[in-house]
């Protein structure tokens, strides 16, 4: 190779290298940006882009929703952000960390509440193992998702049956956390997710535009490029956006009011927890919040969005974080361990806790949160509702929140670092097939298909009430009377217990009307044998029977048995016949089945089930569980079981429901940190007996398994057993505190006497050494 050949090639290589170097800023999204040092927040006035990368022009016809990936990416690396804590649950590289609150798949009808997470936490199910795709997860939990993660699956992860091509994907909702505008609306996000308007959800929630239409109603072949549906402007309306033009400048740049770090109001829609029975004004904020410290003051992150959770040992779980600086101890105790010579104050100069009189063992064995966080121990743990589990924070005409699942706190468990820590706890409930110790859950749809009407006992009542609403009860609310209580249908098809006002309610099973808050019987008391007196009631009976004849899925012809007479409709006319073979005075509303037999409109099993469950958070009775287990077994499923309340229910060889303990029924728990109480409300403030007494709630509060099943057969343990400490020992130890004050007195008296003798001896010795005593003795 001669020199003339080499030189042009060298120049070419250098030119390519140089051009690559100049091209680097253009591909800056692959380089982790470094903070230059300015604490000022940049004004965010920039063009929004849609998912095709086109700049959004709010004035054009049918603009697309903005896409965060394209809009924010020029400055912020979307790929890095996607690896953040809020979005990386399904990533195998993501550190699982200590357990957090799982998603809880709730299906009230089948009494299913399954804890789910892609993170390998104890007791949770992986969604994929239950056949839940990203699409299913988005429909179930997208309401409280920040976007990304399962709401934005990679193309290869899309499963058959999903409608991502219609709905689009819910990208990371940057504005969900960073939008400081009061128009940012989490409820709108949840509604758009419910409508399958995934790609429109962030735009609607941000207040940048109004979104109409529902992707869920569109044909699965619809594509966003198809635009509006010209054939349907009422039902299958394609989602559309009307941008608020006042939020854009003349160059179509959006004027965004962004917050860094995010405000608490951005965290609370998904991270609220409150006692289930508390009134809002009673709820105490975390002491840090009350002091003006924001969530993100401690739970920090950089552009990686790897958020510091702030627990002891997090720096070992995730060495990339500087989380060791943000634990309770790090802020409040300072850096004693790092600096032996001087104690450096912790972050924000947090107050130093002196912990007067508390022995060292407490700091070796307990997390700070044991004494400082959550509700004070009580005879039973407090039932709480959390935003994600109980669907809180979604406001509107409909009530999205649910009573189930039941989550309780505090339950004290030992973490892997050996520290006792307060936890929240819930008990999985599900139908499944047992195989040795394991139980493979059945999907609620499978159970519902097998169980049929067994899971809908109230339908027998609500269908009749619906029929009455079109007839004699049209002036009020039709009600069913069961054992002296009134049951009325609510908008979701269930039953509510209603207040009868001041009017007396009959004792048996019957129907009536609530008018202006006052109960009225459908029929007056009358004697059917007295033809004259019965004329008017019989006219009412005809009207009622005509209404009942229109009952949906009725099992026969409606009829009324009263005082030995049977009223029924024959060819539209009221027929009255004596029925001497039937006992009782009635009135009994009955169906005449195809065999001519009389069946009560509200059967005893239905009556028992409705009375047991209505007005409670329970969804199933033991009778229902036994029948469904029987139906599942008859359907060819082997070893069907139902798990609830920490127990496993199955049919024994004689077909009776039996209850056993099982690993699959064990509760799932996750450590809690908030709300932090001030020092004066901490355990131990009033002395050792806050925890150490014979009947201490801290050790001996009774924790009973909670679940959708109405039963007394539930797991029951004390807090001490969850702690892994000896119940008897702590009773004895608590007992010693009765004598402790006296022991202190004895020790003080003994110490005084010993010290006095020692002092006397010392003084005597000094006296003799100095000669004072001898001199005094020699004085005549």
């Amino acid at each position, binding site marked *: 190779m001669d020199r003339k050949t080499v030189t042009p090639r060298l120049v070419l290589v250098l030119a390519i290298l140089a051009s690559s170097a100049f091209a680097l800023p253009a591909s800056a999204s692959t380089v982790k940006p470094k903070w230059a040092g300015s604490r000022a927040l940049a004004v965010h006035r920039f063009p929004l882009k849609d998912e095709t990368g086109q700049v959004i022009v709010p004035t054009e016809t049918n603009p697309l929703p903005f896409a965060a990936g394209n809009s924010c990416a020029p400055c912020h690396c979307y790929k890095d952000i996607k690896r953040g804590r809020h979005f990386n649950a399904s990533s195998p590289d993501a550190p699982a960390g200590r357990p957090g609150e799982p998603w809880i798949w709730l299906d009230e009808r089948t009494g299913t509440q399954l804890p789910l997470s892609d993170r390998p936490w104890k007791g949770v199910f992986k969604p994929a193992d239950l056949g839940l795709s990203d699409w299913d997860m988005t429909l179930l939990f997208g309401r409280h998702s920040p976007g990304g993660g399962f709401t934005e699956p990679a193309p290869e992860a899309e499963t058959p049956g999903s409608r991502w091509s219609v709905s689009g994907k819910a990208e990371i909702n940057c504005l969900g956390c960073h939008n400081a505008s009061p128009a940012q609306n989490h409820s709108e996000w949840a509604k758009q997710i419910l409508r399958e308007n995934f790609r429109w959800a962030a735009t609607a929630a941000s207040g940048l535009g109004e979104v109409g239409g529902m992707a869920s109603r569109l044909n699965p072949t619809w594509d966003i490029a198809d635009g509006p549906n010209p054939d349907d402007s009422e039902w299958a309306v394609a989602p559309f956006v009307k941008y608020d033009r006042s939020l854009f400048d003349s160059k179509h740049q959006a004027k965004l009011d962004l917050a860094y770090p995010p405000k608490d109001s951005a965290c609370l829609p998904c991270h609220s927890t409150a006692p289930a029975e508390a009134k809002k004004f009673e709820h105490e904020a975390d002491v840090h919040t009350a002091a003006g410290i924001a969530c993100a003051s401690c739970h920090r992150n950089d552009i990686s969005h790897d958020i510091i959770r702030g627990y002891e040992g997090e720096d070992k779980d995730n060495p990339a974080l500087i989380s060791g600086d943000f634990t309770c101890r790090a802020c409040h105790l300072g850096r004693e361990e790092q600096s032996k010579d001087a104690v450096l104050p912790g972050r924000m100069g947090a107050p130093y806790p002196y*912990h*007067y009189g508390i022995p*060292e*063992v407490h700091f070796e064995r307990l997390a700070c949160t044991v004494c400082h966080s959550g509700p004070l121990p009580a005879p039973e743990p407090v039932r709480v509702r959390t935003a994600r589990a109980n669907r809180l924070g979604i406001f509107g005409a409909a009530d999205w929140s649910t009573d189930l699942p039941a989550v309780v706190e505090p339950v004290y468990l030992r973490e892997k670092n050996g520290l006792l820590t307060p936890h929240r706890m819930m008990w999985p409930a599900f139908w499944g097939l047992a195989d040795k110790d394991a139980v493979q859950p059945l999907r609620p749809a499978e159970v519902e298909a097998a169980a049929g009407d067994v899971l809908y006992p109230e339908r027998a009542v609500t269908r009749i009430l619906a029929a009455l609403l079109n007839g004699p009860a049209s002036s009020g609310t039709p009600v069913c009377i069961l054992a002296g209580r009134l049951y009325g249908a609510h908008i979701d098809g269930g039953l509510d217990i209603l207040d009868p006002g001041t009017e007396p309610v009959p004792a048996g099973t019957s129907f009536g009307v609530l008018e202006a808050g006052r109960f009225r019987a459908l029929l007056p008391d009358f004697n059917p044998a007295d033809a004259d007196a019965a004329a008017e009631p019989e006219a009412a009976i005809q009207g009622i029977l005509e209404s009942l004849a229109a009952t949906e899925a009725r099992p026969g012809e409606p009829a009324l048995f009263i005082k030995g007479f049977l009223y029924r409709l024959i060819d539209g006319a009221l027929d009255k016949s004596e029925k001497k073979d039937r006992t009782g005075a009635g009135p009994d509303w009955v169906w005449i089945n195809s065999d001519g037999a009389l069946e009560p409109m509200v059967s005893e099993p239905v009556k028992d089930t409705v009375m047991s469950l209505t007005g409670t958070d329970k969804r199933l009775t033991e009778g229902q569980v036994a029948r469904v287990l029987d139906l599942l077994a008859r359907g060819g499923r082997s070893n069907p079981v139902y798990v609830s309340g920490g127990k496993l229910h199955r049919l024994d060889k004689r077909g009776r429901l039996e209850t056993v303990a099982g690993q699959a029924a064990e509760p799932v728990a996750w450590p809690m940190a908030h709300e932090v109480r001030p020092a004066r409300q901490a355990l131990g403030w009033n002395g050792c007996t806050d925890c150490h007494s014979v009947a201490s709630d801290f050790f001996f509060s009774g924790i009973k398994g909670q679940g959708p099943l109405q039963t007394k057969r539930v797991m029951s343990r004390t807090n001490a057993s969850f702690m892994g400490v000896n119940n008897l020992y702590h009773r004895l130890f608590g007992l010693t505190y009765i004598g402790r004050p006296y*022991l202190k007195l*004895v020790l003080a*008296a003994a*110490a005084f006497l*010993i010290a006095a003798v020692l002092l006397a001896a010392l003084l005597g010795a000094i006296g003799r050494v100095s000669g004072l005593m001898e001199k005094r003795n020699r004085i005549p």
Partner: protein
Amino acid sequence: MIAFIVVTILALAALVFLLTTLRFQASAAGRLPGKKAPPFNLGAYLRWLGKHIRTIFSAAFFRRTWSIWNGWGEARYPGWLKWVFLVFAAAFAYLAASGLFFAVFIRRGLYGLPLLAHIASGGLFAVGLAAIMFLRARDYRFDVHPPTAGVSFAVPLFKTVSADVIRKALFWMFATLGLVQVSTALCSMLPVFTFNTQVALLMIHRWSALGLTLTALLFFDLALLGRPKTPEA
């Protein structure tokens, strides 16, 4: 904490070695015709020690131990006061054994039922020590000399000091360290000291307990068992 464990093991081992060696040599000398102490023979010492350790598991050992303690009590505490001394001694034995065992061998330290018993024994120890101080301290005045005061103590370093002075010094040291023990236990129960002070109190309690135990062992060997008779004695 590591330092405490190491010092505890070394100090106890050294003291036990010293005291047993002296007894071994005295007994060996006693067996010799000329009654002169022979040169130290480690093998013979270990055989001698093994033989005596085996006697610990015999009924005779317990009878002899009881007679020593009971005899000491009856000689110095008239009537029921003997039981004050015996209960005090038993409480101290449990306190020393449980405290040092857990401190040395159990990473978590003293806990559980042994801790409850330790607290209860602590009360008995405090009351007993106060009673003994009140009843018997006068016998340990340095200006009162018993007839045997001229007998020198057999421990090499203290050969020139009389055993009586050593015995009295040990008594007052025991009393002082006992006061430290009682005071630190009491203070750690009071809601007035900070976490760091609590830690310091615990450390003082531990080190003081070690000193107390060493003192007690010496006192027991010197005062209760008495010195073996050497050829010179």
